[in-house]
């Protein structure tokens, strides 16, 4: 039972920060500078989500992690899409790990 209380508490404190901006941000038009700032967010978010975390994607194998990332980027560059790059990257990493014997 204490676990259930813990889960409920965690659920509440996680939901509130997610919800508040949706309720508070209404009305007035946004300033142009803020809109420009918003337009940059996708690129900076992706950059920060990939670097430096990707090095640790496969613990103890930074080069295999980078090989997986490179595979995804090459496929995305020439073929586009999301699923094919993801599946190919996972497959590449799996083969490299198996080849190294874990």
């Amino acid at each position, binding site marked *: 039972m204490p676990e259930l209380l813990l*889960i409920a508490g965690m659920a509440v404190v996680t939901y509130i920060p997610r919800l508040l901006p949706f309720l508070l941000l209404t009305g007035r038009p946004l300033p142009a500078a803020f809109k*420009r*700032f918003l337009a940059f967010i996708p690129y900076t*978010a992706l950059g920060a989500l990939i670097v430096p975390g990707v090095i640790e994607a496969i613990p103890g194998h930074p080069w295999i992690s980078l090989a997986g990332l490179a595979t995804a980027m090459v496929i995305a560059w020439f073929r586009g899409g999301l699923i094919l790059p993801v599946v190919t990257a996972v497959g590449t990493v799996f083969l490299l790990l198996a080849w190294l014997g874990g």
Partner: protein
Amino acid sequence: MKVRRRSKQEGEAAPGKAKLGERNRQEAREGIRLGLPVLIGYFSASIPFGLLAKAGGISLLEAFLFSALVFAGASQFMALNLLQAGVAAGEIILATFLVNSRHLVMSTVLAARMRENGPEKAGGEPEKTREEPGKSGEEQGETPEVDRSGRPGPARLLPFFAAFGVTDETFALAVTRKGRLTPLFLIALEVTAYSGWLAGTVTGFLLGAALPAEARASMGIALYAMFAAILTPELKKSRPALFLAAGAGIFHTLLGKLQLFSAGWNLILAIVLAAAAGSYFYGEEKEE
């Protein structure tokens, strides 16, 4: 379910509104389509959670509830660790709040993007393309005054659902979307991601130990591969995208080395600082 009911209502309401119903279905379909890679990534990422929960003596129901009610990876793993270490529930909840308060920033950005699109109008309106970096929003003209509370009945509840599913990954996908960002699109994307997270949690709990080590380890690349696959076509198109992404990566690395803030806030700071630096460098002079 919600999607269906709403679009049906609108479809029956008036012939002019049938288009809106069709558009809602399209938004939902698009959200699911974009959500599929997150589903794969989340399925892989939550298998270790199920596995660790089981190893830590948590029941299957509790592990499921963690994923179903909290739906925030880092804090779930953290909670398992702290539970193992015998930390009190109150302290774990406080730590969770500190880790997940960063979603405040992500929700703010998403809510702002939605508002920027104006109200959902009944069909016919040409899709507005999101601004490329290096161009300002000024030439887009005034954003129409929108009052969210002006939405019709059930639509008012949409932000409550949309807010629940905001994570690093759904945020990254939603914010990269060109054109409109609607609550229905966001919810469809989140529900798809969510189902992967739940399925992975249960799978990890029940079968995780049976998976070969290489298979478990290789899934660690899935979410990074997804981020890279979203980013790569953008790099092809615009040079600022490369500098913005690289800048954010460098900021994130430096912040990680400095260890002044928690990991979650380092991420947010890197995103915001790089975007602010981008506004500074590309903001004015690159306007056409």
